[in-house]
């Protein structure tokens, strides 16, 4: 492992710093964990494509020295599918907000997971739409206040990990910004996993979600992450009442199933053989 300084120089576009994120925002911690995982996994920057959605989290790709782009809101996984299928030797990493991934992009999430295409999804879940000013997202907890749920959210939230698991993802894990090393570990496993891998990073938006829900500043929210996180093993013996306002952390899925682009390559070989 290289030192912090050389990691910064190697992977970050330091000329683009300081970043736009607010003090106390969780995005920086997640991206820190992600680049350490990339470094540990030994991915070559020239062979790694990072695509990010539109949102505060989506700005990440602009700070990263990789083949990177930010196309439109919600379609990151569909772009990734085209890249990975055409050139399977590339590593493709998708950075998405909770809105990007589970709302506008929800359809692409379930189908990328179903195909088990070998891309890594990093979901930065801050429980709201940060970029547009703090509206409710599909992961906003019931009762929470946002700019568009001023009387408390009446919509039940998605559990993104459950969604990915049910859709067929073969690596699914969740951690949070109080545990950056665990995030790095999960990201690293996701990056070296042969199939669709999703890591959900619970992170904070103190400026909007935190303020509207009186959760305190960045530091308080971070401490709160620790209190809310329940390890998978412990969660198994808890009732849903006991898990209210908590989130379960750990590795939910880690299994093998044929990866989509490998299946495609096999099909090509078979078709060519039959044609001969």
């Amino acid at each position, binding site marked *: 492992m290289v030192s912090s300084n050389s990691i910064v120089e190697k992977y970050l576009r330091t000329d683009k710093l300081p970043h736009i994120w607010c003090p106390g925002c969780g995005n920086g911690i997640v991206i820190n964990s992600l680049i350490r995982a990339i470094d540990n996994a030994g991915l070559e920057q020239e062979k790694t*494509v990072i695509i990010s959605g539109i949102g505060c989290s989506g700005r990440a790709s602009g700070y990263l020295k990789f083949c990177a782009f*930010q196309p439109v809101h919600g379609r990151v996984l569909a772009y990734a599918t085209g890249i990975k299928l055409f050139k399977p030797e590339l590593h493709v990493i998708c950075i998405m907000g909770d809105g990007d991934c589970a709302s506008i992009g929800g359809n692409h999430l379930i189908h990328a997971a179903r195909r088990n295409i070998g891309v890594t999804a990093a979901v930065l879940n801050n429980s709201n739409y940060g970029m547009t000013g703090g509206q409710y997202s599909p992961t906003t907890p019931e009762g929470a206040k946002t700019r568009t749920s001023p009387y408390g959210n009446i919509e039940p939230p998605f559990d993104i990990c459950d969604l990915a698991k049910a859709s067929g993802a073969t690596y699914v894990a969740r951690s949070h910004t109080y545990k950056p090393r665990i995030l790095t570990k999960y990201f690293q496993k996701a990056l070296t996993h042969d199939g669709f891998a999703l890591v959900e990073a619970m992170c904070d938006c103190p400026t909007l979600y935190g303020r509207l829900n009186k959760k305190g500043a960045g530091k308080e929210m971070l401490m709160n992450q620790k209190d809310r996180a329940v390890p998978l093993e412990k969660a198994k013996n808890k009732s849903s009442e006991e898990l209210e306002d908590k989130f379960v952390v750990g590795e939910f899925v880690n299994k093998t199933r044929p990866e989509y682009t490998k299946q495609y390559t096999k099909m090509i070989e078979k078709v060519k053989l039959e044609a001969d």
Partner: protein
Amino acid sequence: MGKGRVAVLSGNDAIAEGALAAGMRFFAGYPITPASEISHFCADELPKYGGKFIQMEDEIASMAAIIGASMAGGKSMTSTSGPGFSLMQENLGFAIMAEVPCVVVDVMRFGPSQGVATVPAQADVMQARWGTHGDHPSITLAPSTVEEAYHVTVRAFNLAEKYRTPVIILSDATLSQMSEKIKIPDPDSLEILNRKKATVDPQQFKPYQDDGTGVCPFASYGDGYIWYTTGIVHDETGFPATGDPDKLTIQINRLHDKINKNLDDIIQVDEYMTEDAEIIILAYGSVARSAFAAADKARNEGIKVGVVKPITIWPFPEEVIKKVSEKVESILVCEMNHGQLFEKVKETVEGKAKMAFLGQYNGKSIKPDKILAAVKEVSSGVFQ
């Protein structure tokens, strides 16, 4: 594909054959009538060439996937019809902005919304020009025969590669389903263009640095270059230029200029018996077929009629239309819509010739006799 051969193909199959010959190696699409046969062909054929076909979850994803594949260096295409074309518009805008070559086929069917899936129209002409938001250029081509569908598709790929832009092919339900004999050329005889590749030292590479041609060299993912791009208006580095009014203007101008400064190369218009014509029938796509037949009949009856058939719809062939309008008395625009290209022609003609419009929007192809009747009315001054 083999060497040159004669075949009986549908319009849809000819487009797919042309794409394959042009080097398409990636296709993503979502089933829709009357375009689905293009997908079927690609699903059958692409794996044989080591290419990839994927049926995506919708047309938004299809458009995204072909852009992604092209960024990784593949020549890519999708095909659809009106409802799907509407869904593609946002990502189409990204391809224009990030300057990613790809080909989008819209086999036009009838009506807004679901319309009528199985019958033809030409009502997406303005959508092909302005469907995605913001100021942007469009290259849109419209073939009128099965053989032309093949060659227009090869050309669409060539223009996409040469100018680093998506190219739209407007076909229609009539052309897509009809069968005609076509000569498929020996692929080696075709002119195939490939995008200009980045050759500079990767450290020096700026993805949108104009090399003087207006079209920047392309670095496919995996070719050793690290670069950034975004749908946000960007400067030559690929990074947002949102705070700089001058840079915003430069970028929008460059997008337009690379097309507008090459109109001679991009614009293709067929003229038929226009030399001494007093009346011009202007028609494109499958309607042009009836226009030619009507012109022949009119000539037999002594009416001096010619046909102007734009194959390039956008950029609009203004110069050609202007020249024609100076020579002739009347221009009769025939379209399967309520009046789309007609407005553009009228604006271009600037009163130099009398304008008449024959629009048919009943899901039926316009028959030659109907055009002939309109020509006679124009000729006798009834049709004003």
